[in-house]
C-alpha cells in the first residue's frame, strides 16, 4: 500500500493517508525514470513537501521544492509529482497547512 505523508509539522506527527490502487499507480508513474538533479536546499519550518511511503523495507520517496529524492539520489520533478500531491492534500482538507496560512 502506498501512503502519503505531508511533511509540514515540527512537533506534532505529520498527517498521513493511503492512496487507492489507481492513485498509487498514477503517482508512481510520475516518479519513474526522472533525470538527475542537484539536491534540494535545506528544509524549513512549515511545508517541506511529501514523503511517499511505498511499504516494506523501501525507503520513502521525498518530493518537494522541485526535486524527487529516491534512495538518496536527487532527481528533477519533471512530471510535476509535487503538484499532483498538493492537489491530493488540498482535496483532503490540508490546503491551509500547505499554504502556511496563519489564523488571524
Amino acid at each position, binding site marked *: 500500500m502506498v501512503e502519503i505523508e505531508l*511533511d*509540514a*509539522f*515540527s*512537533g*506534532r*506527527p*505529520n498527517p498521513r493517508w493511503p492512496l487507492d490502487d489507481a492513485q498509487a499507480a498514477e503517482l508512481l508513474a510520475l516518479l519513474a525514470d526522472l533525470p538527475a538533479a542537484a539536491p534540494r*536546499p*535545506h*528544509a*524549513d*519550518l*512549515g511545508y*517541506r513537501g511529501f514523503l511517499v511511503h511505498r511499504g*516494506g*523495507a523501501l525507503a520513502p520517496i521525498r518530493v518537494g521544492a522541485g526535486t524527487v529524492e529516491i534512495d538518496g539520489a536527487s532527481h528533477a520533478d519533471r512530471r510535476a509529482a509535487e503538484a499532483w500531491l498538493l492537489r491530493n492534500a488540498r482535496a483532503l482538507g490540508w490546503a*491551509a*497547512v500547505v499554504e*502556511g*496560512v*496563519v*489564523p488571524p
Partner: protein
Amino acid sequence: MIVTLDIFSGRRNPSWMLSDKKAKELADRIAHRAVALADSEDGGHILGFRGLVVAATGDADGGDVLPSAFRIGGAAAPDVQALQAGRRALTADETDDTVRWLLATGAHAIGDHLAAAVHEDVEASLRGLREAEPAAEAIEESERDLGAAAAACLIANTRCNPAFWNTAAVQPHNNCYNYAMNYRSDTFAQPGRISGHPNSVMACPQVGAAANWDGCTAVCNGSNKNVALVIWPGVDYHWYRRHAEGFWGHKPGSTAARNVDNANQLINGSTRTPANCNRGSYTVFCGYRFSPTGMRVR
C-alpha cells in the same frame, strides 16, 4: 540509553530504555574497553542475531569513557582506534555475560513469543565467539562520579552535536521536543505525554503547561538548559535549544538538526534569536523556558 536487539531483516528491531541505574551498571562493565561501533558493517549481511546496539539518549559528549553508540555481541570487530589506544577488547566471557544481562533488561520488549527464537540465535552466536576466543582477561572497573545537582540556578547548555541526531536511526523518530529537551526517545515526543498530561490545543498556554508537567519551568532552579517555545496558531508547536557556543539549535520535525532559521541565517543568540528569527508560519513566540538537565520526554 536505548538498547536495540539487531536481529530482524524486514520488521523493526525491538528496542528498550535502560534505567539510569542499569545504564551506570553497563558503563561500569565496559568503560574504557574497546567495543564495536554501532554502525560497524561487519556482520551486517548475517541473518539473525547481529548484536545489541546501545546508544546514548542525549547528545552531550560522554567523554572518553564510552562511545555514544556501540555494539555488543555479533561478529563486528572492536573499534580499531580504541584498540590502538591500548584499550582491551571484551573477552568472550565478558561479552557473553553482558549480552545475557542486556537481554534480561529487555525481556518486556522482546516478549515471550520472540524469546525462544532470539535465545537460539544468540546462543549460536556466542558459541561461535567463544570458539574464537584467546585468553581471558580481568574486567577493568570504573567509577562514575554522578555529582549532585546544585539547588542554585546553573545553566548547563551543551555543545551542538548534530551528528548525534542526523542519522537514519535517530532523525526520523525524534522531533523538535526531543532535540530541545535533549532526550532521544524514538517516539516523536509530545509535551505532557510522559507525565500523563497530553495536550491537543496548539496555543502557548496549553503546550507550555504540558511541557511543565514533564519538568520544564519558567524559573531556573538547579542545573538547566535554555529552551524556547513558538507556535503556529492552532496548527503546531516548535522548540529551540541554546547551545554552549551561544547559538540556538533546533530540529523541525523529522528533518535534520540545524542552527539556522528559515532564511538560512545562524540563530546566533545575539542579533538573531528564537524571538526574532525567521520562523515561517510559527508566528507566535511564547517565551524562554528552562529544561532541567536529564529531563525525559516520550
